[in-house]
């Protein structure tokens, strides 16, 4: 970059800062005044050895001494600021003063709308009368019509009024010509909220209607098209109503035609757009609109277009049930849709290509009995492996695993062919073992596996140390590592202090389908504290499964606390008899075991164990008359149980 460029860049930067300061602070603020001084220095250095400089403004950048400056954002920023203020060029002359620059910036800080209403900044500055060294040239407004930004709405509103008041036919033509770009810049939903803009647009369109009906229709068409594409507008009832005032001269046929064209175009027709358009139609009934569309559709000779229209309509009719399309439309279109209904399925579905390809690979592999020939099928499967995993295609992987197993049985040569594939499958499937809720199809597979890639230690570590107390790993452990059950119990014993954890384990086991679940419970019982033991007995009771001797042993030798739980496990009549024998039929010569029997009677009373009533009668008879404490306890218990 040469010195001239650098100086100009510095100047534009200073210009931008000064402008920002006048917007932020008052014109007497120190920051603004300092920035003005700075700007003056930069300007003077450019003006050195020159009588004047001229900066030309375009929306995208600025021209200075035949160079276009636009790459840096600050050039564009300054350019847009001046462009929106209708400034085509600025000239600074040798001798420009800080005061002149101050006035310039004061006026630049006026709202764009005010600048335009006061006929431009050149005129405003001219009114000041003392800006000898600073001149502006205003932009022809038509160039502004291509502009962007919020303020452009004000510009348009002003010009609409101006061209009509002056009846400048050339400008009106230009204006109509640019009407589409206006609607691209300012959407109908935006200008309908602006009273002033709406009023001017009405005036403008009224003028056109009287003086140039063709151009008037042209503008209405543009407005209607812009409205359909304005998602904010079509959802807003009020705005739609206000728009209808503008479109009062649009015939129903035109609305229908627009609707039809929309069905024909490659663009989607949204349900909301369809409803919006049908609401705009004036006198026409839904019946008439539907008939119009049906007639158009039935006359369509191009099969591809007919399919496309049918597809769009089907989509519309089957979309959101909350927004109702009057049934008359479907009725009118029935025969057309029937004729073209195939289109609903006729879509070139890329995903289906991949899906079918994956299944074909399975088929080809299952048909292939030569390990050598299977190699390149396996290669292709490995190639799509990532996408299979990404989409969690469990069925594919499980089917593949089954094929591999069958093939390996058929020919040992397959073992090597499938090695990598098997590793990947096993790794993938094993990752689900440690998920709390694996997908059902994977669960169903994994719960039946006969071997696992992970060791027993890894299972124990993850279950007991990482707390992955999930059904699947526990089930797999007891199935796959049958000879390592003792290790499991030992880990359990070490965790007995953590009652919550242990209860989680036994609850998981309770819900598992395991052949020797009760044995597992009994082994866990052996290594547990009383609290967990009681919990195990409760779960056994819930299951209704138990080994008699295990329970009877508890009744014989455990605490009342556990005896009570053990008693609730028993469901068989014979076992009840045996249990009562154990609890109450204790040998009691001279009342030496009164204490135990009385404790057991209390337990029965507490449990409301009514099955014991008949046994109490027997016990009472058997108890000698002198053994008052026991007889009293028996009677007391009978009262409670009968009560």
């Amino acid at each position, binding site marked *: 970059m040469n010195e001239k460029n650098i100086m100009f860049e510095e100047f534009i930067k200073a210009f931008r800062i000064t402008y920002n300061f006048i917007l932020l602070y008052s014109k007497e603020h120190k920051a603004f005044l300092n920035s003005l001084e700075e700007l003056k220095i930069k300007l003077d250095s450019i003006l050195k050895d020159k009588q004047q400089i001229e900066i030309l403004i375009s929306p995208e950048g600025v021209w200075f001494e035949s160079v276009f400056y636009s790459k840096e954002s600050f050039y564009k920023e300054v350019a847009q600021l001046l462009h929106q203020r209708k400034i085509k060029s600025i000239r600074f002359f040798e001798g420009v003063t800080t005061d002149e620059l101050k006035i310039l910036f004061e006026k630049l800080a006026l709202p764009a709308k005010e600048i335009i209403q006061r006929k431009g900044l050149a005129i405003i500055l001219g009114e000041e009368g003392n800006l000898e060294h600073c001149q502006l040239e205003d932009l022809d407004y038509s160039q502004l019509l291509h502009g962007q930004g919020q303020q452009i709405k004000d510009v348009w509103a002003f010009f609409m009024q101006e061209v009509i008041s002056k009846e400048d036919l050339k400008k009106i033509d230009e204006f109509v010509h640019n009407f589409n770009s206006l609607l691209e810049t300012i959407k109908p939903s935006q200008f309908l909220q602006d009273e002033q803009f709406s009023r001017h647009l009405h005036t403008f369109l009224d003028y056109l209607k009287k003086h140039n009906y063709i151009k008037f229709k042209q503008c209405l068409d543009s407005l209607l098209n812009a409205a359909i594409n304005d998602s904010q507008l079509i959802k807003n009832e009020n705005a739609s109503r206000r728009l209808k005032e503008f479109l009062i001269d649009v015939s129903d046929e035109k609305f229908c035609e627009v609707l039809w064209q929309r069905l024909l175009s490659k663009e989607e027709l949204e349900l909301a757009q369809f409803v919006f358009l049908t609401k705009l139609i004036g006198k026409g009934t839904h019946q008439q609109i539907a008939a119009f569309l049906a007639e158009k559709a039935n006359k369509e000779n191009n*099969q591809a277009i007919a399919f496309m229209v049918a597809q769009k309509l089907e989509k519309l009719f089957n979309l959101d049930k909350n927004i109702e399309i009057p049934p008359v439309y479907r009725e009118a279109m029935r025969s057309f849709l029937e004729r073209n209904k195939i289109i609903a399925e006729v879509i*070139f579905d890329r995903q289906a290509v991949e899906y*079918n390809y994956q299944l*074909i690979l*399975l*088929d*080809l592999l299952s048909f292939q009995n030569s390990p050598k*020939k299977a190699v390149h099928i396996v290669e292709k499967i490995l190639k799509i492996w990532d996408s299979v995993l990404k989409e969690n295609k469990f069925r594919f992987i499980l089917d593949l695993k089954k094929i591999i197993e069958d093939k390996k049985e058929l020919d040992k040569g397959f073992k090597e062919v499938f090695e990598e594939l098997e590793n990947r499958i096993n790794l993938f499937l094993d990752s689900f073992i440690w998920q709390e809720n694996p997908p059902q199809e994977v669960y169903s597979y994994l719960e039946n596996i006969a071997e696992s890639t992970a060791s027993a230690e890894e299972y124990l570590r993850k279950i007991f140390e990482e707390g992955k107390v999930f059904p699947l790993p526990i089930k797999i452990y007891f199935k796959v590592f049958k000879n390592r059950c003792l290790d499991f119990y030992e880990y359990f014993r070490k965790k007995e202090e953590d009652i919550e954890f242990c209860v989680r384990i036994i609850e998981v086991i309770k819900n598992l389908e395991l052949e020797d679940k009760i044995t597992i419970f009994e082994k866990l019982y052996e290594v547990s504290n009383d609290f967990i033991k009681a919990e195990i007995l409760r779960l056994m009771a819930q299951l209704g499964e138990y080994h008699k001797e295990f329970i009877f042993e508890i009744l014989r030798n455990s605490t009342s606390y556990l005896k009570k739980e053990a008693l609730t496990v028993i469901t068989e009549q014979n076992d009840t008899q045996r249990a009562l024998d154990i609890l109450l039929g204790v040998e009691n010569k001279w009342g030496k075991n009164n204490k135990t029997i009385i404790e057991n009677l209390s337990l029965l009373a507490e449990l409301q164990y009514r099955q014991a009533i008949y046994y109490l009668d027997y016990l009472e008879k058997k108890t000698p008359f002198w053994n008052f404490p026991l007889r009293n306890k028996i009677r007391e218990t009978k009262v409670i149980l009968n009560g």
Partner: protein
Amino acid sequence: MVEKAEKVLRAFMTSLQLTTLYGLEHPKIKGTIESCIQAFDELWQQQQEIVFGIIGDEIACDKDILFEFSKTVQPIVKFLKKRNIERILFRKGLNRDDLYTFLELLVAHNEKEIPDIQKALSAKKVQTIEAGRISGESYKQEVKDTLAAMDALSLYTKSAQSFQRCVNNILDTQEINALDIRFELNNLFESLVYGHKDLLKITVLKRYDQSTFTHIINVAILAMLFASRLGFNKEDILDIGVAALFHDIGKLGVSRTIIRKTSSLTNSEFEQIKGHTLYGAELLLRYVDTLGTLPVLAAFEHHLKSDMHGYPKINFNKKPHLGSVIICICDIYDALFSRRSYKAGLAPNVVYEIMMKEKEKMFYPQLVDTFFEIMGVWPIGTLVELSNQSKAVVRQQTKNIFKPIVEILPPEHTPQLINLSEESHTIDITRAIDPYSEEGKVLAQFI
């Protein structure tokens, strides 16, 4: 020198191929344009400009004719000739923008609306490229001949030869150039869209040809036409075209004796026939990276039936892909029509009846109806006899699939077009005439 010229030309043609297939916005294009500019930059170190000419099917560069190179870029040669471009001059100073503009102009127009590329280049202020026809008397006749050769038949024949080479490569497990295949199909597709009647006429005619490759090329043409009328986009259509070309490749692994056998097949022979779907799919698996996966699907699925009587017997249940079904319909249609050394072709109305009877066994049976709505019962180009004994050729389909617009042929009747579907006409088509029969040959003179 020639090497550098070839390098430049190859880079340019690759850019053109990719632009035609994927459009200028595609990310692949940027890289090829860069390679192209790089190749030109190397060339500019030695010369100021380079001129390429197309003479017949050969590409000439200055005084050299690049015979070998020309063979490898035939689809592009055809493409350029269709656009009236026989000479391209690139000048030093050529930049990316000029190249983009040129490519944009080349692919933006279809062959029916050929613009004057040179005028368009001038309008866009491209001064580093000139393109257009070869001027000078000495070339005129040659160019004329070349353009004359660019009719539908020539396009058909050349495409068939090129696909045949490709199929042979696959059978020899050699590499194939998928881009060329797609480009070749693109040429066919453009002809189909902008002058499809001519190409369809050729497919009718070619059904009487006994060459193996006419069937697959017919199926590809029909499938692309069908797909385009179903509203598919160009990429999907070309994919279907490629898949159609290879759907029956597995048959090349079955003994000719079995395929041509007219008596009943033994179980073992039938098993061999059925095996062509598996063999084809396995063969095409090797080319998934170049041809995509759809050819595998088409080879595997094109004999599946919804009543489970098709083959192969699949273990992993799925509905055949729509692309396979389209190919299946076109395959059956063309096979029933086609005359072979071992069987006679069937008349169009018989083909229609058979297909309508069989359609319920197919997936998407309604597609068969749609197919005939597009093709009509009597395809364009068919020689027919009418109920008033006059002979005619089918010119255009109408909404009534049985009653097309026909052109009455001399010598016995005055030539005229008749729309048989109009109520005022009570004339029907009574039979099709074999164009290779004596009667057909006579009539063919008047078409």
